[in-house]
């Protein structure tokens, strides 16, 4: 047995070093760390996605104009393919619900959904019946009701009805073209505002000119874009169509263009990219904070959900009637909830509060 007179200081030093090490590992990220992460997320995640939305929506505007000049099957298919591209791009950046996309409610203009009261159908039919030529301008759509100026209205025009509707009623075709032009203008404006100001506002957080008081505050918006969509995907895109005992396939998103499942796949892939697909990422930050095991869990969950989604049969509008599909979707929903819980827990590690009154008010 050692002498009780042995000096205590090596032990104390050891303990204090241990605490220091633990302290460093668990410390919340510093402002420069948040700044670096935000920079990566803006330049490698957000901007490329808005660029892709801008490109595809410009092509859609061109191809719907071509369809009106020559309404044949080839031009219709081209316009439908460009619609799918644009919807791909939108579903891949739908998670960003802050900054320029919220200006003038562009996010809602782009896609008003869910539409429980069939507002889009009613408003669109009204326009189609009246055939007022004054409504055929982007300026008109600026102040028009939210239901008739976005992707869901365009989906109805391009994917329901027949080619002869477009041939025989030039108004219908011109409305299609005008809505596509409006979406292109909106996408361009969103991108321009990011590159001409909002990206600087993020990188200069804390300065007088910035919207943000700190880099951490800007990171809160980024983290909301990572976590909040998980619940929306689960509740609106999966559980609502599953219904209460009886499936409701028409509650799926984009069922007319048969891409409900693809939307969910793109949404999850987008969140996965936001989590770990950039040079500096939430994943790398968690590892720096000594949370490698938790980061591994989150990555595993993302991969598992992506695989589960691959196994589901498309299109949901028909496959939803199969018990196997229901079972798969319930499993995916549970996995999304688990992912939500794990990511939310790590926000505490990172000292990020997503919102108290805004997310859970009364």
């Amino acid at each position, binding site marked *: 047995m050692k002498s009780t007179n042995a000096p205590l200081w090596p032990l104390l030093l050891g303990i204090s070093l241990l605490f220091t090490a*633990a302290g460093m590992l668990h*410390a919340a990220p510093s402002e420069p760390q948040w700044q670096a992460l935000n920079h990566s997320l803006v330049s490698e995640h957000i901007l490329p996605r808005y660029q892709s939305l801008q490109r595809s929506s410009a092509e859609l505007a061109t191809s719907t104009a071509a369809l009106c000049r020559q309404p044949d099957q080839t031009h219709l298919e081209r316009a439908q393919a460009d619609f799918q591209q644009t919807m791909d791009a939108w579903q891949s950046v739908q998670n960003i619900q802050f900054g320029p996309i919220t200006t*003038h*409610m562009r996010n*809602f203009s782009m896609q008003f959904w869910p539409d429980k009261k069939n507002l889009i159908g009613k408003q669109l039919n009204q326009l189609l019946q009246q055939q007022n030529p004054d409504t055929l301008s982007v300026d008109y759509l600026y102040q028009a009701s939210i239901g008739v100026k976005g992707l869901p209205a365009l989906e109805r025009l391009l994917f329901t009805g027949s080619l002869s509707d477009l041939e025989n009623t030039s108004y219908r075709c011109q409305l299609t073209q005008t809505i596509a032009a409006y979406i292109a203008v909106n996408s361009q404006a969103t991108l321009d505002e990011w590159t001409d100001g909002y990206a600087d506002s993020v990188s200069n957080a804390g300065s007088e000119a910035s919207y943000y008081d700190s880099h951490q505050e800007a990171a809160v918006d980024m983290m909301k874009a990572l976590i909040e969509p998980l619940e929306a995907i689960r509740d609106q895109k999966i559980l609502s169509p599953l219904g209460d005992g009886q499936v409701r396939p028409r509650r799926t998103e984009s069922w007319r263009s048969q891409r409900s499942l693809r939307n969910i796949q793109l949404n999850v892939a987008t969140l996965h990219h936001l989590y770990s697909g950039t040079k500096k990422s939430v994943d790398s930050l968690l590892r720096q904070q000594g949370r490698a095991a938790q980061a591994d869990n989150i990555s595993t969950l993302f991969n598992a959900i992506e695989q589960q989604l691959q196994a589901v049969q498309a299109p949901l509008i028909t496959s939803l009637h199969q018990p196997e599909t229901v079972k798969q979707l319930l499993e995916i929903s549970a996995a999304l909830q688990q992912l939500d819980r794990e990511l939310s827990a790590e926000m505490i590690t990172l000292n990020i509060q997503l919102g*108290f*009154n*805004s997310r859970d*008010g009364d």
Partner: protein
Amino acid sequence: MEINRRRFCQLLGSAMLLPQMTLAAADDSRSAQPMFASAAKDRSGQYHLYLIGQQGQVLLDHPLPGRAHHTEAHPQRPLLACIARRPGHFIDIVDYQQQRLVKRIIADNGRHFFGHAVFSEDGRWLITTENEINTGQGRVVMRSLEQNYAVIADYPSHGIGPHELVQQPGSSVLVVANGGILTHPDRGREKLNLDSMQPSLLRLDLLSGERLDQQQLPSDQHQLSIRHIDTNREGNTVIAFQYQGNIGLNLPLVGVHRPGEAIQLLRAPDPVNMAMKGYCGSARFDQSGRFAAVSAPRGDLISFWDLQKNQFISSIKSRDGCGLAATGNSAEFIISSGTGRCIRHNLQTGATTRQPQTLATAWDNHLTTVRL
């Protein structure tokens, strides 16, 4: 115990602040003056009722049995009532001078609270909004302070889901916001009647329970839940709505009611109305009763209104800002936020100042100023 850098900085910070505060307290008796009280959630997830002094120091830290919503200050005595968030069952009555829990009121069997209560102006009664669970009907219940908070009156609220209630100053009129949303404790906070909900604003005589007036919204606006209100001396009520439909429809989110008239909806300029994201969290008149503040925590902004002219004045950014209270100055408000920040905004000077603070906590929906 895990010691992280933040905790270490807090310890260091408090150790450095302590001597200054003690000195300040000795120097200046004003420092012990309370500024506001509010429920909050601390960083470890525990709920508290805090009373904060003019210098930002903690004058009372009362642990709560669960999450609370509104805090009400007694008009004459050093008492705070802190009401459980719906569907909660407790109201803690705390004496902040003696630093003790005076009474924990528990909701009767078959009832729960909705998060709001007021002391009557004469200080004799505590009045709550409650849910009669088996019928889903709202109740307005009066308890007597002289009789150890025994129930002395139990009135119907003539609606579902009554939320905030206020007394019109200098009158015996109670104004009650019937939110219209049916919930049942078995289903948590799930909204059970969004398709058929019918919110209303009730004016009630507090001595008799008689319904003096009840206003509903037109049927195409029935999903604008009437949740948070304040009433001035003239009986004009400012209303903060929460829209239960698709917020892309961009409905007006603020209303004003004058006795004998219909509710009038007020819309902020489009960019602001849109930015409010369909959801207001709190409404308060200023000390003069002319100006009102309405918070929009989902939009990270506070809007200000001139209710003499029914006009929007301005808005300021306040991330996760929700709690509002009038200060003793005209056109001036204190704003608390879920990020822990507290600011003071004066409409006349346009100045926004950060309140001194020694506590890092998430302030819950409502705060009250405390002046005795």
